């Protein structure tokens, strides 16, 4: 991209139960972010609120959040998909030259307010899939998991290895909602089957959470913070809607989105040029599946990569050093949280989860059944 846009700051929170309300969560997070940056709401040019009417239980649900996020009487609009779509939109608003700063405000109380499974359940075809009552978010993910395992002849044990790495990373990360201290492979392999081959601890937990992020033009970013993180490239793609028409053993949406984002960022060899990746893998198998699709893992080498520690925090190409969505998945915020975790790493502020070399990173977000849509953002110092 010719004009530079940076992430200058963020504030996020997640828990299985945040013991809060939507208004209070959005106020606490944005007020906290403004205080961190030493700004007031009038310093924000445009607001992008990213929530879901269906999950909020009221239409045009952003209007209720205007006062609490500081958008009262300001230029404000809404994105109703994953937070990385809202980041894309905020970036475009700044690139238009009209605004120097844009606040992305995402949240969902899908831990306590409403079941997270409704979101995908009600994206299914109302005139066929829903009356047939066989597909839902979990059964679809299980079909995708089996398809991926079968493609390379992997055993179900791979799912335990992936979940172990993610859940152990999440346990060390204070930003995560599900932190299972001392989690073991036996504990994962002994958790109940939901839909085979997926067990409870292979799947994301129902999570409350929010993430607020401020983007700025190059000039303004340098005034607002010492360590701006630059948006180097963005790409998106949407796969076929119908599961039966798709090859569930891979992800066209992730591969195309990554190709587009990396093309914009000038990255030719992702395995060499990227230092780590934060991926919206809502289920254990999606982590290598999406990583392969995006060119981060060699196809067919996932079992070796997880066994040898190549994907671990101190590995060749760390994947989800934050723990990823297995540690928490507030819908709408989830992808933006991947970007926020990447920013922490790129600033060298990821604490116990810090990777050694962190200059260029990839963040991935998804929406729809089995990552029908993917958004990829390349970030760099």
């Amino acid at each position, binding site marked *: 991209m010719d004009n530079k846009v940076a992430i200058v700051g963020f504030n996020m929170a997640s828990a299985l139960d945040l013991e809060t309300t939507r208004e209070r969560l959005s106020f606490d997070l944005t007020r906290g972010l403004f205080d961190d940056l030493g700004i007031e709401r009038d310093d924000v040019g445009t607001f992008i609120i990213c929530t879901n009417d269906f999950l909020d239980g009221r239409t045009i649900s952003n209007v209720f959040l205007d006062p609490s996020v500081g958008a009262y009487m300001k230029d404000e609009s809404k994105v109703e998909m994953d937070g990385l779509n809202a980041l894309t939109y905020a970036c475009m608003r700044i690139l238009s030259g009209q605004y120097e700063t844009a606040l992305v405000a995402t949240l969902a109380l899908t831990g306590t307010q409403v079941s997270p499974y409704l979101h995908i359940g009600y994206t299914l075809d109302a005139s066929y899939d829903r009356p047939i009552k066989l597909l839902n978010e979990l059964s679809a993910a299980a*079909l995708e998991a089996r398809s991926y395992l079968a493609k390379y002849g992997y055993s179900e044990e791979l799912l335990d290895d992936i979940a172990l790495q993610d859940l152990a990373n999440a346990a060390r990360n204070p930003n995560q909602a599900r932190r299972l201290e001392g989690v073991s492979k036996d504990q994962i392999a002994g958790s109940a089957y939901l839909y085979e081959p997926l067990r409870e601890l292979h799947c994301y937990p129902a999570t409350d959470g929010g993430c607020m992020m401020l983007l700025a033009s190059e000039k303004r970013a340098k005034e607002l913070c010492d360590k701006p993180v630059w948006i180097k490239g963005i790409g998106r793609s949407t796969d076929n809607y119908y599961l039966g028409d798709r090859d569930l053993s891979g992800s066209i949406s992730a591969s195309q989105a990554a190709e587009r984002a990396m093309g914009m960022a000038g990255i030719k060899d992702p395995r060499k040029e990227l230092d780590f990746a934060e991926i919206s893998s809502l289920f254990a198998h999606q982590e290598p599946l999406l990583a392969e699709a995006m060119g981060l893992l060699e196809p067919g080498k996932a079992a070796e990569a997880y066994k040898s520690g190549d994907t671990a925090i101190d590995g060749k190409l760390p994947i989800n050093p934050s723990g990823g969505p297995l540690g928490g998945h507030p819908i709408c915020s989830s992808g933006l949280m991947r970007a926020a975790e990447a920013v922490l790493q790129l600033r060298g502020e990821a604490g116990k989860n810090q990777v050694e070399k962190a200059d260029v990173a990839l963040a991935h977000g998804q929406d729809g059944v089995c990552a029908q849509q993917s958004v990829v953002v390349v970030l760099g110092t």
Partner: protein
Amino acid sequence: MEDIKETFYHTVAPLDFGYNYRVGTYLQRYIDALKDKKILGAKCPQCGKVVVPPRKYCGACNKVREEYVELSQEGTLENYTVGHITLEKGQVNQAESPYIVGMIKLGGADNLLVGKVAGVSPQEVKTGMRLKAVWKDQTEGEYSDLDHFEPV
């Protein structure tokens, strides 16, 4: 940020209403054919691919699928999952007994049809199995006329 632990009063705000979706002519033809114990797909004039159930627009070609094709009642189990839970209105409940959700490639189709698989135990089900459609004795012109698939 203040760390106040409060007991919140919870109100329940149900969203309880129905939508009347028209299934459209293509799915209507599919449903009508089920009454005659036939399975229909639709073929794209450009890429030639046949999808089941029939849907009017081909996403890849941006063309109208104009031709209905009767498909074989036998096919191959390409993918499946054994369900241990049910998920109704977002709520997870333990299933009464494990059940099989299959994705089946019918003869003449280029995509996979999602269907219930029975007549084989969850321990013995395998991808690659040949399956056949099992119909209700009395068909009514409903999705449920095609009751399940079982091994040939």
